[in-house]
């Protein structure tokens, strides 16, 4: 489901395992987001945010695989059956 949007961590505020927060930028707007579910995330990381909580760190290497896969299947198709 659900609307979750990638944002860049600009700073991390103090806080414990439930309240750790940070300032996350979404294309020009900054919001305080709870980072307690992504303890490994730090400044500069992109996180996926839903309803005020970061749920995952975005893996840049995996992100580019969508386009590598596209090139792969086109190369195969060009070679013919």
């Amino acid at each position, binding site marked *: 489901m659900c*609307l979750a*949007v990638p*944002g860049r961590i600009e700073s991390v505020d103090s806080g414990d395992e439930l309240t750790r927060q940070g300032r996350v930028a*979404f*294309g020009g*707007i*900054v*919001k*305080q987001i709870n980072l307690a579910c992504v303890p490994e995330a730090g400044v500069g990381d992109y996180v996926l945010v839903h*309803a005020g909580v970061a749920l995952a760190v975005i893996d840049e290497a995996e992100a580019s695989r969508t386009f590598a896969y596209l090139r792969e299947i086109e190369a195969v198709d060009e070679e013919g059956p």
Partner: protein
Amino acid sequence: MSDRASFAPVCPMPADAAEEIQLAHGGGGGMTQRLIEEIFRPAFAASPGELVHDGAVLELGGARIAFTTDSYVVRPLFFPGGDIGSLAVNGTVNDLAMCGAQPLYLSLGLVLEEGLPIELLRRVVASVRCAADAAGVRVVTGDTKVVERGKGDGVYVNTAGVGLVVARRPVAPAEVRPGDVVLLSGDVGRHGVAIMSVREGLQFESAIESDCAPLAGLVLAMIEAGVELHCLRDLTRGGLATALIEIAEAGKVDIRVSEAAVAVSDPVRGACEILGLDPLYVANEGRCIAFVAPEQAERALAIMRRHPLGAGAAAIGTVEPGTGMGVVLRGLLGGSRVLDMLSGEQLPRIC
């Protein structure tokens, strides 16, 4: 006949034969239209062409006068980039400008709630004065009433405005022709996001400011340069999409718009992404669309861009013969879809 009602959401589920006024009647959408058709026009309109546009153009002693009125019930009273005072001035100034008129004089009617701090009233009035000066208009008459505590939202403002029509030909949806180019004066969505940003729980760190501004100067610059404006509409509640749909319906034309051509600033874009809002439907208070003949488009655009409020102006679409489709948006992937009127205000979503 529209009113800039509060930004509280409106209920889209009316009883079929509504016996009472509901919030949705103030929404500017279908229910407002029904009120106008069933109650106001039968009482006041002398001809079918009357009471369809935001302002009225009248012959008075040989001069063409534009006359409009608007009420403001916005909450919160103060928001980044404006307040109920500047909103009231610019809203009415813009309605007059959209008739092709130079706005001149405003009245200021206030309904104050008992218990309102006088300091707050001072702030609102100072803002009205400031906005009037910036728009080149004067508040020349007014009225004040006070209602009991609990019977008003602090301050309700009504402004009426008069201006001198300077456009040589009528400026109205009926003047729109197939082939006309649609120009948009700047990026969209600032006001609606600014209002939401001060609502509890939707705060952003960086304040997005409302684009609340007087557009008369921008419009007059084009008129003075001899550009023939077929139709003008300032974008308010319901955003760009709603304004386009209303003109398509009133002018009985289709309008084709390119989504890629509509500018959205980065902060507004980010806010819309996380709140799940479509920027095309988010409120504005300092943007307008202009319909001009294709041979005039380039010149009109150049004039707009020279004006501070039109720096981001762009051509966003064209008018086509009416088929009943209305507004067709060419999306980012190249596919097209019909834009519909919203039922009620857009609400933030998580799904």
